[in-house]
């Protein structure tokens, strides 16, 4: 196996799988654009169901990437989420890894053409 290919595989395997999942990646990306975001906005923009979004947020919270604030507005429950510094770093690291991975793969594709 070529070392370049091995490096590419290592790079793929090194990607943070918690962040890599598309729904969680979208959630973290949206949260990175604001200080605090209501559940309803996340649901609309990420196009996720309530249950799905709730489940992903719980996983991100357990990993310390987001914080969840639960309160009430009148009698209605209000859930808001914010990205933590760790979450912001994880997202940036992920984006750097993916960018580097794409850069390393792109010349190979051109060679095949």
């Amino acid at each position, binding site marked *: 196996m070529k070392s370049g290919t091995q490096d590419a595989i290592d790079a793929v395997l090194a990607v943070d799988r918690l962040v890599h999942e*598309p*729904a969680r*990646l*979208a959630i973290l*990306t*949206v*949260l*990175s*654009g*604001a*200080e*605090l*975001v*209501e*559940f*309803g*906005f*996340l*649901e*609309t*923009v*990420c*196009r996720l169901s*309530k249950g799905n*979004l*709730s489940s992903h*947020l719980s996983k991100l919270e357990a990993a310390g990437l987001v914080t969840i604030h*639960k309160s009430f*507005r009148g009698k*209605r*429950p*209000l*859930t*808001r989420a914010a990205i933590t510094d760790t979450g912001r770093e994880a997202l940036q690291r992920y*984006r750097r890894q*993916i*960018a580097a991975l*794409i850069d390393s793969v792109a010349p190979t594709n051109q060679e095949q053409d």
Partner: protein
Amino acid sequence: MQTDADSLSRLAENTSRYACYSRSAGGLSLVIGGLLCLATFVVGATVELTPALRYALAGAPLLWLLSKELLRAFYYQRAGAARERLSGKQRRMHLWMVAYLAAMSLLIIAGVAWTAGARAWQWPGIAYVAIVAAMPLVAARWFWSVGDFLVGVLLVCQAAVVIVGLHYPWYWILLAALYAAIAITTGWREHRDYLRLRDELGLSNRSHGRGAEA
């Protein structure tokens, strides 16, 4: 779901733009503020102030703040609130703005207390002092942009002056018109930007309720 790098950057950017409407972007509320500012200065300088008119003009800042809150909650952020993440520069600017207004308020109140003596603490002097004292607090909570600052300060100052039965001279209308023009132009541009953003985020054909259950 889009996951490529460009789409993610756009998603983060669009969220930031949407979140601006929680603080620094007033949109139509800035237009309303500009119109109220101009109207109150014109009326104050040209019409004889009856008690009812005085209270109506003094209520203009409250009307503006109410419109600001209602538009934010039920129009610009009706898909769910997203609070703007302020940059260091924005935080410093806001802090200096509030500190400046707090210092000016203290100076004005001290000046009034010095010149008016006990009358400053009787009606309507006490109302003047209360409005001036409230200005930095209002600024701390609601003034997040230059447009807010220009319109808000003029509206509050005008309210403080008319509550004691006085009014600004006619030439202040020119300043009010200038500030109103800036606010209306900025507010309208922000509103147009919101309409584009609403389409980009797919919010225009969704009818999400307020709040969020999880």
